[in-house]
């Protein structure tokens, strides 16, 4: 064994080396002893035996000694390793301190990338990965009606509301459901407390919402009793800890106190605990019982949403399939209301975040790209530096440092760089997360769960390590592999082998490609956003201020009181200086729903029951059309003469006129009541189609009724001003307070904000992705600049020779530029192919732009090529300024 090893000059393995050593030591002892015994007169063979006898058990003793030696080896090796690491760390820190410019560029790049990645991840984590703050949140589901098979006008046919009878059937007949609770939004005005009327945010809930479904008990008092949801029961409320502190100074004797909500007395029976975070759809302040006695007639009126808790072990899929079975039975039993409908059961968290999820994943992906580009940049910096440190490394190798040691030393430097960047990055992540939460569009779900905590720091740590490894490994392997003899022969000036130049080029090409993918993504979103902004809304929200009113039924019980209030309100507002017109509507465009209703055209064949055409109906005061510049394309607008006593009139939109009146609606009549008790209304005008349901939505049927002929207690009043609408806010508030101090203004905002709010998600995503793309572009350009400059500096001699041989500056310039643009072109082509392959991922975010939009791809490619040109121009010009005599003399 050992002979063969010697024969082949194999390095002896450590264990075998130890055995040899012990053998030799013991053999020496035995031979010496035998020799001595021989000298004393023993014959050789007896002497050998006697020596062994005196020694004892040779095999056992060698084993013991070997074990002792091995143990010593191990301790020494570990000590060496710790020593090495400590030395590498010290050396790394010295190296980093030696080249402050290189180090700060690298550290800053890494810090920004890690900071941005961590910040975005903390948002993704808070919204999508962290479980909801309820017991067993995976058992919670949201229940919707599915109307996708029905030809009706509804905003989201997969997520439509339920009627009471359908809810009850779902609750009682789907076996997977343990508890279910229906709810309805409620924004009552709280009066009779210090500090004036307050508009609250809450809901009506059917029994069991808190303890059974969400699994939260009130901290004070109790939840609703089953009998409290009967219509004749005493009105009681449960309030939030926040409202308790805000409005009632955390009064410990609050229970059984009566408060006035919308001028109706409610007795407080419970206060929720401070850590209860109601799902956004339940509001934040106050909850009362859904007092409702369902009858079969109400199966078609959909005004409820519902949450359910499934049985332990039941999946949403199981609940969905049982609900689908139920829907088939209901369709059969109640075809009028339930024909072509179904249930949709979605996990609660999925339901709450699904709108946001595409955007968030896209952003996380984008920031990951930025991180990769940053890594490539730092790797390229390290490669260039590794080349200039070739001499140092060659000397170390020549002096006996193994590849492993060199690799370890270089990796230590990278990881230290990354760690410094990571620490800085965490600081950036704190700021960034804060900023993201503040800038996030209103209504972004679960934003309150977003926080930088241990989870996130762990993520940042992992990213930092991965980053260090990622940008460090290539340069380190490359440097450790450098042939020391070659470098030293060249005088230690350069270690720039053809291989490392190729590697740097490949990295730059990759970087350009990654940046191009991001730019394409951002470009598509920008184009989409432009399209969204260019959409003709059909009305003009500029210089319009809108206020929301909810009259308490108790004090404004009838049509007359309501008409009088709003008449007086409009009259007073119209006299304010700066106001040019005033008008009101039951639901502002782009801002939520009023209600849909069936309609019947006079003289048309009666549609089958359950399949009547539906329409979103709004009530307006005469000034509304003028106030928001909504054009009446034919016929007339409403006037003050269209009052409760006058002929019933109606205005329809262009879509409805085209689809139901063959383009000629004025003078025709239609009915929006039931056909048992029709009220025929004469179409007096046709209004332009406007974007009622959102900028992306198709135009749908719409109708306008004169408010005076169907007054409600709920209205938005819009004021068109000749001055900045913001400046009129206080005046409007003052007028309202003077008219009725107990009316809380729900919302008072410039109407432009409705438009910008409805674009908020798009704006947020577009600007973030745009920002990332610009950073990526910048990093790629810097990377390209670095590689081109470096390459020019290593080719000075060649340039000098060319110039000496008479090459004009333009040739030299062209040479450098052609090479640089070649790299960029490679990156652009690869990036474009990559972008085409993955741009489908943003399709859900796009509006009227194809994910493979040729214009966008072309513009982005041109932008990238231009940036590449600019970045390589400086080194190209420097190349032409090479002084051939100096360069050649220096050799």
């Amino acid at each position: 064994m050992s002979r063969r090893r010697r024969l082949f000059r194999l390095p002896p393995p450590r264990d075998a080396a130890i055995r040899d050593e012990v053998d030799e030591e013991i053999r020496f002892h035995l031979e010496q002893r035998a020799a001595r015994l021989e000298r004393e007169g023993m014959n050789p063979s007896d002497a050998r035996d006697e020596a062994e006898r005196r020694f004892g058990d040779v095999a056992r003793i060698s084993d013991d000694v070997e074990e002792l030696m091995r143990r010593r080896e191990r301790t020494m090796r570990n000590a060496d390793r710790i020593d090495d690491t400590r030395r590498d760390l010290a050396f790394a820190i010295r190296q980093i301190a030696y080249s402050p410019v290189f180090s700060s560029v690298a550290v800053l790049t890494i810090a920004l990338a890690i900071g941005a990645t961590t910040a975005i991840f903390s948002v993704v984590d808070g919204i999508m990965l962290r479980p909801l703050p309820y017991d067993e949140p995976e058992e919670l589901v949201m229940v919707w009606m599915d109307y996708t098979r029905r030809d009706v006008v509804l905003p989201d046919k997969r997520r439509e509301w339920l009627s009471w009878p359908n809810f009850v059937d779902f609750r009682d007949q789907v076996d997977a459901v343990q508890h279910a609770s229906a709810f309805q939004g409620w924004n009552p005005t709280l009066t009779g407390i210090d500090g004036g009327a307050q508009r609250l945010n809450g809901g009506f809930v059917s029994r069991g919402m808190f303890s059974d479904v969400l699994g939260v008990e009130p901290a004070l008092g109790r939840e609703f009793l089953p009998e409290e949801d009967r219509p004749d029961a005493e009105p009681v409320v449960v309030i939030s800890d926040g409202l308790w502190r805000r409005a009632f100074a955390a009064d410990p004797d609050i229970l059984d106190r009566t408060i006035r909500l919308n001028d109706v007395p409610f007795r407080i029976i419970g206060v929720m605990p401070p850590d209860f975070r109601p799902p956004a759809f339940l509001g934040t302040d106050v909850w009362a019982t859904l007092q409702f006695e369902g009858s079969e007639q109400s199966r078609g009126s959909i005004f409820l949403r519902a949450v359910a808790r499934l049985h332990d072990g039941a999946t949403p899929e199981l609940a969905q399939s049982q609900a689908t079975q139920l829907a088939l039975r209901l369709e059969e039993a109640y075809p009028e209301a339930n024909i072509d409908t179904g249930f949709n059961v979605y996990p609660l968290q999925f339901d709450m975040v699904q709108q946001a999820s595409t955007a968030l994943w896209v952003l996380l992906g984008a920031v990951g790209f930025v991180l990769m580009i940053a890594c490539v940049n730092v790797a390229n910096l390290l490669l260039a530096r590794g080349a200039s440190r070739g001499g140092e490394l060659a000397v170390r190798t020549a002096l006996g440092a193994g590849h492993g040691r060199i690799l370890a030393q270089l990796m230590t430097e990278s990881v230290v760089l990354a760690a410094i960047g990571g620490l800085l990055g965490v600081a950036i992540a704190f700021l960034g997360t804060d900023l993201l939460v503040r800038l996030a569009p209103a209504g972004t779900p679960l934003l309150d769960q977003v926080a930088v905590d241990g989870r996130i720091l762990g993520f940042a740590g992992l990213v930092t390590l991965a980053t260090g490894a990622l940008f460090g490994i290539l340069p380190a392997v490359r440097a450790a592999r450098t042939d020391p003899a070659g470098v030293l022969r060249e005088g230690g000036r350069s270690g720039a082998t053809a291989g490392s130049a190729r590697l740097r080029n490949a990295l730059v090409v990759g970087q350009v490609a990654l940046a191009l993918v991001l730019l394409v993504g951002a470009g598509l979103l920008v184009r989409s956003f432009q399209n969204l902004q260019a959409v003709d809304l059909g009305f003009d929200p500029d210089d319009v201020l809108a206020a929301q009113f909810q009259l308490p039924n108790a004090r404004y019980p009838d049509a007359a009181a309501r008409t009088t209030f709003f008449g007086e309100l409009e009259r007073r507002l119209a006299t304010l200086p700066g106001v040019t017109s005033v008008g009101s509507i039951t639901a502002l465009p782009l801002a939520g729903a009023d209600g849909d209703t069936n309609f019947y055209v006079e003289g048309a064949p009666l549609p089958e029951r359950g399949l009547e055409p539906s329409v979103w109906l709004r009530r307006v005061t005469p000034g509304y059309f003028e106030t928001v510049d909504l054009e009446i394309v034919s016929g007339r607008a409403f006037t003050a003469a269209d009052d409760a006593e006058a002929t019933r009139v109606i205005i329809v939109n262009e879509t409805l006129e085209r689809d139901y009146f063959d383009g000629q609606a004025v003078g025709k009549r239609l009915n929006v009541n039931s056909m048992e008790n029709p009220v025929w209304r004469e179409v007096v005008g046709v209004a332009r189609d406007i974007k009622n349901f959102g900028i992306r939505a198709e135009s749908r049927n719409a109708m306008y009724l004169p408010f005076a002929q169907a007054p409600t207690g709920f209205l938005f009043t819009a004021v068109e001003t000749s001055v900045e609408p913001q400046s009129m806010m206080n005046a409007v508030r003052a007028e309202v307070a003077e008219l009725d101090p107990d009316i809380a203004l729900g919302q008072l905002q410039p109407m432009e904000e409705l438009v910008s709010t409805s674009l908020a998600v798009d704006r947020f995503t577009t600007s973030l992705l745009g920002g990332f793309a610009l950073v990526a572009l910048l990093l790629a350009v810097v990377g390209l600049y670095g590689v081109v400059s470096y390459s020019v500096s290593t080719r000075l001699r060649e340039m000098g020779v060319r110039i000496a041989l008479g090459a004009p500056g333009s040739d030299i310039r062209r040479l450098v530029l052609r090479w640089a643009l070649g790299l960029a072109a490679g990156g652009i082509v690869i990036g474009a192919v990559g972008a085409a392959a993955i741009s489908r991922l943003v399709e859900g975010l796009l509006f009227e732009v194809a994910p493979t939009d040729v214009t966008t791809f072309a513009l982005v490619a041109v932008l990238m090529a231009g940036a590449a040109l600019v970045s390589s121009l400086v080194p190209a010009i420097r190349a032409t300024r090479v002084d051939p005599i100096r360069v050649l003399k220096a050799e």
Partner: protein
Amino acid sequence: MGQNPNLVRGTLDLLILKSLTWEPRHGYGISEWIEQVTDGSLLMEEGTLYPALHRLRGKGMVESEWGLSENNRRAKYYRLTPQGTRYLEAEAASWARYTDAVARALAMETPEP
């Protein structure tokens, strides 16, 4: 068998260290020295010397190095480290106190001193 049962634990270590106070020795040299100075009465099995030597090496009391023996053979030589010297001095002193005390006790002829 092993060591002489009368050999107190740790005595062999002290003898090894003592044998190295004048010069580095190889294992065989140490065993010869011990044999000479103790009239062969202590070390019954010469082999036990080696685990003891290596244990001392692991504790940093001795260092080893390959060298050439008197008759030009490769042999591993052991040398006292400063730590080993200090240890030997301390242990030798306490050994002397101990044996003195035992000797005095055994030399008593009356029950009271």
